[in-house]
């Protein structure tokens, strides 16, 4: 069925189609639409789930973890400050190996107080052990949440699906809504291998010494790394059901490219328009969308742009004292090719500054020629800074 929906509505639709059993959440702009609409459909009985209107994000994540340990398919959603408040439980959920799926709406961290798009909130949680996926449009939101449950429940790891504030959360656009019957075939009910069960008691969250600790973490590292391939396999299976592919890495016009723009989120759609415009001028340029940031899809990324000589990373985030976080990741991913590959990093499009063709093209020109209005800060060039 074709419909017009906001990204937040697409998320709610996916949760309904996934037959989620427990929702626990606390509202925060711009995520609020999701928790309100979930409360509505659960209240009306359209989704048979337990809804927990908790007092904080920390509790939202804690109760999702508990419900997931009891074998329920669980969901929560948050944004910026709320995600930061969950931080302790993000580590816990990943370590507990429970397949919670969460939507995070990428909004700037305060201060200064700002509601608009910035990826620093989720990227600063990248070491918690959560799988991180960044959506490009409303269709991607709906589909990737369904893929996320299948991946999470197979890998026994939690997945964070990220939506750009307003550019995706509050933008209405057409999408295809899959039918429940086919979704049920793709995503059967969750069957927990080990769960909290009074009739079959087990020990969870053990205290552990040097004998086991390193081995447990090593196992998790291997399982997390394997998700890069697992996601693409599950996405391929999703594609067979619904004829839409959502891979970890999406390259655009990179086959013969010398230059490549890299980013995450909705701006990667606009980057393609910039590539088309610059191709008309004869520039051999392509673009690449990193849909997945954790695990970092290093092998696929390297293969996708093996012949590129100059990479331009545009970050809507920063690691203070270092540089754009995606730029850091890309540099680490191409460490083998240092010397032959130039990487220029920009910080742009934050705090409500739109990322348009007209803002992307000057950054590309500055990366090539060195001339432009973006100003240096360490290894990054910052756009939209007052003189």
């Amino acid at each position: 069925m074709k419909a017009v929906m906001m990204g937040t509505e697409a998320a709610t639709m996916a949760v309904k189609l996934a037959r989620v059993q427990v929702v626990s959440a606390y509202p925060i702009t711009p995520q609020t639409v999701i928790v309100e609409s979930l409360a509505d459909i659960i209240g009306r009985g359209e989704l048979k789930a337990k809804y927990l209107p908790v007092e904080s994000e920390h509790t939202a994540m804690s109760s999702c973890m508990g419900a997931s340990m009891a074998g329920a398919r669980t969901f929560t959603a948050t944004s910026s400050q709320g995600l930061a408040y969950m931080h302790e439980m993000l580590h816990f959920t990943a370590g507990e190996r429970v397949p919670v799926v969460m939507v995070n709406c990428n909004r700037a961290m305060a201060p200064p107080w700002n509601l608009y798009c910035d990826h620093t909130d989720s990227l600063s949680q990248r070491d918690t052990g959560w799988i991180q996926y960044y959506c490009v449009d409303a269709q991607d939101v709906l589909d990737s949440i369904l893929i996320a449950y299948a991946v999470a429940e197979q890998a026994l790891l939690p997945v964070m699906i990220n939506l750009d504030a307003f550019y995706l959360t509050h933008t209405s656009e057409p999408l295809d809504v899959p039918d429940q019957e086919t979704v049920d075939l793709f995503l059967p009910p969750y069957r927990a291998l080990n769960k909290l069960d009074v009739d079959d008691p087990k020990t969870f969250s053990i205290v552990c010494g040097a004998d086991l600790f390193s081995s447990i973490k090593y196992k998790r590292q291997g399982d997390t790394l394997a998700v890069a391939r697992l996601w693409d396999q599950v996405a391929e299976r999703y594609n067979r059901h619904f004829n839409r592919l959502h891979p970890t890495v999406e390259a655009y016009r990179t086959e013969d490219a010398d230059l490549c723009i890299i980013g995450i989120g909705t701006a990667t759609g606009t980057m393609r328009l910039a590539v088309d415009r610059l191709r008309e001028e004869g520039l051999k340029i392509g673009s690449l969308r990193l849909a997945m940031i954790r695990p970092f899809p290093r092998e696929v990324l390297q293969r996708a742009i093996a012949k590129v000589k100059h990479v331009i990373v545009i970050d809507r985030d920063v690691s203070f004292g270092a540089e754009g976080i995606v730029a850091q990741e890309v540099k680490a991913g191409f460490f083998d090719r240092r010397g032959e590959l130039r990487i220029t990093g920009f910080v742009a499009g934050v705090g409500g500054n739109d990322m348009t063709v007209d803002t992307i093209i000057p950054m590309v020109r500055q990366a090539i020629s060195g001339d432009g209005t973006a100003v240096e800060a360490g290894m990054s060039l910052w756009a939209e800074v007052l003189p």
Partner: protein
Amino acid sequence: MVGIRFHGRGGQGAVVASKILAHAYFKQGLYVQAFPSFGMERKGAAVSAFVRLDSAPIAERGDIKNPAVVIVLDFTLLRKVDVTRCAKPDALILLNCRENENHNPVKDSFRVAGVDAVKIALQHGLGSKSAPIINTVILGAYARISGDLELANLLEAIATGVPVNQKQNMAAAEVAYHAVFSISGELNADKNRH
């Protein structure tokens, strides 16, 4: 790509109007996008909302720089906001105003039309005298002068796009369709803008 910009005040329904309009065009087979200029705005503050229309999927997001259509839900905004900012030279400007009002906010090259949406809304019991609900009314007027939006598609989109009083909203939009008047330039638009 055609860009449409709404100007209204928080609580007037500009955002809902943008969604209804996008949905109506979607029914006509176009790719659409509706987007609010959302922020810390509160009831009564100046807000805007946007609609993009195209025959191909839309990858651009955020503000529409050069709208081809500007729809103003509140006449008093003209004193506060430059509603024609960066509008295309031949843009269509639709105002919610009385027919005898002194509306001269815009350059000659624009095609300017008006509709007394407050009167029509109150005749249909939409909102109160101090806070009339005119968002669907003004869309009815827009359908008449757009040159490419079928009234039937708009009415269907209104029926699913408003939470209450569907019948009154649809009836009011239809009345507005016939009540729109020219302020400057032709009422009828060129077709095939996309």
